[in-house]
Every structure is written in structure tokens, then in C-alpha cells.
């Protein structure tokens, strides 16, 4: 019995230590954030910002097998910024960790709006309304509303023309966009559903989301499983955190604005999915399914200019709100 007790005591020490390690990581995360906002964020921030692009480049290369070499220097920078936490950080030196938003002193200068589909119609309602015309109309309205904003707004397409997903991704990357918003219209079963959905990059096991991703990714040239493998490696990417923040801002604005005009509207919230346009872009990126063309009442609403204008207004508010939050975060970091 004494033997068992000794064994139990040894096991319990292991359990407690293991949990302390997990807890210390959580607390380290909180303290790091606080400390950086208070001052010495700049140089680790610059290192992190500079190396983030390397992390991302590594992440989207399917054939790379070794871990990202950039992960270690990012941690190194963080460790130097929090002297008191050295032992804990040393333990996790080579593990990729989420990079805090406060470490990247950037502001929004270029926004790329991507009207989904074009050439190919995308989803089509029973009455013949197509996804490609709705997305283009809303995108053009959005650009007009954002005129005068302190950032440039570019569209991946301005006419009804086919544009492959990789070209959309390249367009955003080459124009050094700071934010990417892809607009789509959903098609769901049962047709009674009227739902908003907002996605940012990440893996998913939800069969409905996988099916949607397959539909939206259909001209990518890669298989979904290829992307899933890649995504499992990049989920700690700083871009993911920013994309999530953007997704929540847009999702809330959109739902709040549209609910009054479309009372049966349901907000299915923010989700992760492996859409090609979200994987390849190198900036915070989201994809919004603004309505369901499978629902005839909602399709009818989409035929009205007023409703489309409301969608564009809500998206504009979301983008402005996110850009403003970014600026505030910057100011706090500087002070």
C-alpha cells in the first residue's frame, strides 16, 4: 500500500507540474501583451513584423517539411522583452506561438475588395438572380461609400469577367493590401435558411463548411486535403488573429444593420475554413457570405437597391471600425 502511495505521490507531482507549465504559458501570454503595450514593444515588434512574411511564405509552401526557422527568432524577440519570464520562455523557445497584435505597428493603407465569382455565375436563385452580379454590385457600392476614407480601395474585378482564385490572391499580395474582403452569396439546404456567415482562414471538420469551401475553391488547382495540411501548420500565424478580429467586427456590423430589414436573418457567426483566397493572401483576410440565394424571400430582398446598399454600408462600417481599432492600438503602443 505504501508503494502505491509513493507511486501516486509521484504521479500527482507530474500532473501538477504539467498543469503549472500550461498555466505558466497562459500567464506568460497575458504578461507579454501587457508589457509590450507599455513600452518595449518596438524592436521585437519590428523583428516579428519582418519575419511574419517569412512565416507566411513558409506556411503556404506545401513541400516544405522542416519547421519554420523564423519561429525561433520571433520567440527570441519576445523573450528579450520579458526578462522576468525567461525560464518559461526558454522551455517553449522553438514552439511557434501566436504573435501579439501589439507587436506589429501597422495601419491600414490599402483595402482589397473581392467580388466573388464573375464569368461563372456562382449560386443562382430560382428566379435567376446570380451570385456574381450581387457580389459585384455590393463591391462597387462599398468602394463608393469608402471614398474619402484614409486608405485606398481596390477591387479584384470591376466587370463581369472570370478571374481565377490565384489571380485574386496575387492581386491583393502585389498591391500590398492590408486587408482583404471577399464577398460571396451562399446557397443552403433547407431553403428556409437565411444566414450570414463570416470566415477567416483555418481548418474545419464541419462537412457543410468543407462542402462550401470546395464550391468556392473549385478553380484553385489544389485539393482541399492539401490545404488542410498546410492550414494545420499555420494556425498560429499572426494573420489568423487579425483575420479573426476583422471577421468578428464585420459579422457584428452586418448582422446588426441587416436584422432590421430582414427579421428572419440568422447570424451563423464567425467560422474558420480553408478557402483558397484566405490561404494565399498575406494580410488579414475574410470571406463573407452576405445572404442566401437559396431562400427566395432573401433573393427578393437582394433585388432591391436599398438592401444591397445596406449590406455595403454595414461592410464599410465594419472595415472603418477595424481600421480605427488598428489605429488606436498603434497609438497605445507608441505611448
Amino acid at each position, binding site marked *: 500500500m505504501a508503494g502505491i502511495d509513493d*507511486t501516486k505521490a509521484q504521479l500527482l507531482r507530474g*500532473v501538477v507540474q504539467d*498543469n503549472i507549465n*500550461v498555466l505558466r504559458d497562459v500567464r506568460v501570454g497575458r504578461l507579454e501583451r501587457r508589457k509590450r503595450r507599455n513600452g518595449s514593444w518596438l524592436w521585437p515588434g519590428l523583428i516579428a513584423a519582418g519575419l511574419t512574411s517569412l512565416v507566411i511564405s513558409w506556411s503556404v509552401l506545401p513541400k516544405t517539411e522542416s519547421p519554420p526557422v523564423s519561429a525561433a527568432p520571433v520567440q527570441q524577440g519576445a523573450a528579450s522583452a520579458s526578462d522576468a519570464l525567461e525560464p518559461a520562455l526558454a522551455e517553449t523557445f522553438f514552439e511557434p506561438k501566436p504573435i501579439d497584435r501589439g507587436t506589429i505597428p501597422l495601419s491600414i493603407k490599402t483595402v482589397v475588395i473581392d467580388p466573388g465569382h464573375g464569368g461563372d455565375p456562382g449560386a443562382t436563385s430560382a428566379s435567376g438572380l446570380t451570385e456574381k452580379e450581387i457580389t459585384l454590385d455590393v463591391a462597387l457600392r462599398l468602394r463608393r461609400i469608402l471614398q474619402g476614407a484614409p486608405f485606398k480601395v481596390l477591387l479584384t474585378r470591376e466587370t463581369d469577367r472570370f478571374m481565377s482564385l490565384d489571380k485574386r490572391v496575387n492581386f491583393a499580395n502585389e498591391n500590398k493590401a492590408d486587408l482583404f474582403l471577399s464577398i460571396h452569396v451562399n446557397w443552403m439546404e433547407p431553403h428556409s435558411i437565411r444566414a450570414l456567415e463570416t470566415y477567416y482562414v483555418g481548418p474545419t471538420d464541419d462537412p457543410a463548411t468543407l462542402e462550401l469551401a470546395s464550391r468556392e475553391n473549385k478553380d484553385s488547382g489544389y485539393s482541399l486535403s492539401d490545404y488542410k495540411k498546410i492550414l494545420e501548420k499555420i494556425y498560429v500565424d499572426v494573420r489568423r488573429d487579425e483575420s479573426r478580429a476583422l471577421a468578428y467586427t464585420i459579422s457584428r456590423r452586418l448582422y446588426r444593420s441587416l436584422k432590421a430589414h430582414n427579421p428572419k436573418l440568422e447570424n451563423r457567426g*464567425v467560422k474558420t475554413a480553408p478557402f483558397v483566397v484566405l490561404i494565399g493572401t498575406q494580410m488579414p483576410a475574410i470571406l463573407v457570405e452576405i445572404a442566401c440565394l437559396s431562400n427566395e424571400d432573401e433573393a427578393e430582398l437582394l433585388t432591391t437597391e436599398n438592401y444591397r446598399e445596406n449590406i455595403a454600408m454595414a461592410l464599410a462600417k465594419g472595415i472603418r471600425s477595424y481600421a480605427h481599432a488598428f489605429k488606436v492600438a498603434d497609438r497605445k503602443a507608441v505611448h
Partner: protein
Amino acid sequence: MEETNDTLCVGIDLGTSRSSISASNGERHVIDSYVGWPVDMVARKLVKKAVLVGRDALDNRSMLDLRRPLERGVVKEGSEKDHEAVQELVRYLISLVGIKPKGKNKPKVRAVVGVPAEAFRVSRQHLRSTIDGVADNLMMVSEPFAVAYGLEALLHALVIDIGAGTADFCVMQGHYPTEEDQKTLPNAGDSIDEQLMKLIRERHPDAQFSIHMIREWKEKHSFVGEPKDRIIVSVPIRGKATEIDITQEMRTACESILPPVCETLATLLMKVEPEYQDKVRNNVILAGGTSLIAGLPAAITKVLQELGGGRVSVVNDPVFAGSDGSLAIARDASPADWDKLSL
């Protein structure tokens, strides 16, 4: 540990399909891991609650935004609603053992929660953040380790905890198990459900059935090996109630987990020190809801014959083995240890 009136220890097995709680006040409960919110005001009026948990949620699912928030035993990524659902689930479990969240003289709740063996560090941090505010102190342990601890199978034992989302393996060698000693497979109850659904749909394309019906059939009739009786179930086909035989489909679906489970068992056994392999082979313990599949211990024993023979037993109480083990850990941990793990 010395227990006082102002402290309550609880062990929680947070499962994909079912979650159980065992408390130091003697209370034990199991619930279906479902949480649902009324979809609109009409539904809210009908169900008379802001949120429904467990069987209540499942029974009223047509009126609810229903969530099964634990994927592979950890909080599903991507939806705030799933995080809320986990909180509601844990809060509800704790309320079942007599703790009201804002009750007067509420004792301090010290919780040990079982998570899959290979849960990543980030997932455990995630779970810790999610449970923040529901318990006062929290420890997380691997599910099979909790089972082993509760059974006092601490030396030369191999626990296989087969739940809905995962099959978790853990070799107990008298020390806290390392990553090398543990393994998690996604081949468990849910993968059987998917397989069964696919097979029945292939054979009866016009039959109408839901995943909930599939789960009920599996819980009643699952088996591996030779069937004792034919499995006949009733489903609507073109609107007419029709009896169909699903014996072969059930067998194929249930047996689909055998190859990966046996392969992993053999791999873990090979890692044990050679002089102890025989002892471990003779102390294989099955736990978890999916371990109740008829004929499963015999099928695994048969595979062990090829490795030199062995003995497979099923825990007496598969539903509570995890939460009872977690409770034992919670009770044995010292107050000083608990103080280090406050939320």
C-alpha cells in the same frame, strides 16, 4: 487531501458524446454533451429556458441552435457559440452536484477535467480559458490517465479509453506518462456512426434516418464478430414505416475501428521495456462508452494472442470511470498544489 465544507472536489470527463461528473459530496451524473439555444422568440416561449443542456437540448432540437461543442474532446475552433456551449456544459454539470453559480456560501470548486491524451498544449490552454470562472481551481489530465489513476492501475497497465470522438491510449509504468506513453486515434464512436450511416445509405438510398437514430441503433445493437441476432430497425421509406436489416452494416462499421486500435496497441506495447511487456499485455483495460461494443474485448484478446497472449478487461463502470478517476486525483492533490492552479 483534507476536505472541508467550503471545498468541493469534482472530477469531470468532458466527452464528445457524453460528459460525466463525480463529486466529493457523493453526487454522480452523466449528460449528453449537447447545448442548445432557442432559435427565436416562439421557441423561447415553448422551451421556457434561455439555454438547454443534455437530453433536454437533444429532445427539443428542432427548436434550438443545437451544439455538440467538443470535437475530439477539446473545444471546437472557430465559433464563439461553441465556447459558450462548453461553459454552459461545465456550469450545468457543476450545478448537478449541488453548486449554484451565485449561491450564498458557495464552496470552492476544485475541478479535474479529463482531455484526450495527445491534446496539444494550446488546446489545453484554450480549455482552461473557456472554463475560467466556472470552477475556482482547475487541473487537466489525460482521459486514460484519469481512468488508470481511479482504478489504481498505475504500474504495468495499458488503458484504452474509447469514447465518441477519440480512442485514447496510455501505458502506465509507475511514472507520469510522457508523450511516448500516450496516443490518440480519431477512430472511435463517431467514426463508427459515420461509417454506419454511409453503409445503410448505400444499401437503402430511399430510407430516411438521422445521425441521432444511427447513434441510438449503435448504442442498442453494436457488436463485432458473429451476430447473436439479426438487427432489424424501422425507418420511413418514401413516407412508409419499413423494417430493414442492418446486421451486416453494423458489424462492418463497428469492426472498422479494430485495425487502427490493435495496431496502436501493438505499437505501444513494443515501446515497453521487454521484461515488462508480458505484464502489460495481461493488463489491458478498456474504458469509455464505445468499449461497450459487444465482443470488443474478445476481438482485442484474439489480436493479443498473436503477440504472445494477453488479457483484456472492461472497467465496471465505463460511463464514470473517467470522472471517478479525475475525482480521485482532485482529492489526492494537496491544498498547496491546488493553490498553484487557481483560475
